[in-house]
């Protein structure tokens, strides 16, 4: 398994998905960029991201998990864990 791949969740695929949802260039979505403070994500956009994550990775995110989606790195860990246990 490569360093960018955890439980079949490719970090770059995830970065591309989030960049698409946030209407940002991929390079602006760094691993640690804070979605709210650095990338200007509001609550509605955060929900769109969550819906797209659920669709693509066939997972379910509860309300608390949605609130915890603060950076790409955090999202990657969460999604990988969900996919790994699915």
């Amino acid at each position: 398994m490569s360093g960018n791949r955890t439980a079949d969740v490719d970090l770059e695929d995830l970065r591309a998905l989030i960049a698409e949802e946030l209407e940002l260039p991929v390079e602006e979505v760094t691993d640690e960029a804070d979605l709210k403070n650095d990338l200007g994500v509001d609550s509605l956009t955060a929900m769109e991201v969550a819906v797209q994550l659920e669709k693509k990775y066939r997972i379910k995110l509860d309300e608390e998990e949605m609130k915890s989606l603060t950076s790409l790195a955090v999202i990657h860990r969460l999604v990988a864990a969900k996919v790994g246990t699915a």
Partner: protein
Amino acid sequence: MSTGGLAVAGLGIVAPGVCRPDDALAPADEAVPGWFQAGSALPGRGYRRLPDACKYLLAASRLAVGDAGDRLSRTAREHRAAVVAINNTGAALMEELDRTIMRDGAAEMSPSSSPYIAMSCFASRLSVEHGITGFSLTVNSPVTAGLEALQLAARAVAADRARTVLVGAVEEALSPSQATAPGSEAGAVVLYCESAAGGRARYGTCRVRSAFLDPAAAASGAAAVFAPLLGDAPPCRIDAVLDDSAVGTAAARWLDQLTGEHDVVIVPAPAQAGCLTPLRRVLGLLAQERGAPARHLVLAASAQGTVTCAELTLAPHRAVGTGGAEAPSV
């Protein structure tokens, strides 16, 4: 009922085949796919997932606010307001969301577009866009809602409840299964309005009156409704947005007696009670280049009996200003 006057300082329109406000008097074009280019009309993030009609409204509002120069930025947020007329705006979207729910389940609904099931969301989004915290209102009367939006704005300005009001009308084409006839409206019109008392009326002023004509007694009741509504000295030109209902027919017959002294233009009412055409007419008249002041009346009536007229005092100006360029008075 009559209200105080409104001064119009900025114009914005987004509609098929319309490039500038002074194109607005032309007959409405059919909304063919691709007529609206959201990327160029609304550059920036946060618009892509909005319903198309919301994009039309925001794009038209940007044009109107830009046309008014720095007026909005000089107005405190709590003194800004929005009144938006809509009738069929959300119909196609609701059908699409229904289809999503039946096919894929409610969890597949887009968080960005599903709030627009509530028709007030369009005005709310407009308020967010322009930092409007005074109030936002949504008007849903068939056909006449756009003119009634002007009337509500005038009332609010007269009461000092707001100093600037974005008055808009927006419609979206009905789906093939919803449309009972071709020609449902699509697009948006926004007028940047202020009090007519204090400021200089860049494009002109308008004063709106409304009444009710009982459809069951439209023919016999027309004179009692239209005579006071139009006043003792109606303007020489009257544009009347009418359908072939009992109310529309009674209005047309009553106006027909004015022919000779007045230039009466009958504009077919939009299919299925859309509210864009009357306000579009107001915008188009305000936008026309002219060398001397003029008076004009736009009247709209619905089959349900609402009758509203906007009396316009058109200011002399040259070409429509853009980006805040003050169109000089003559």
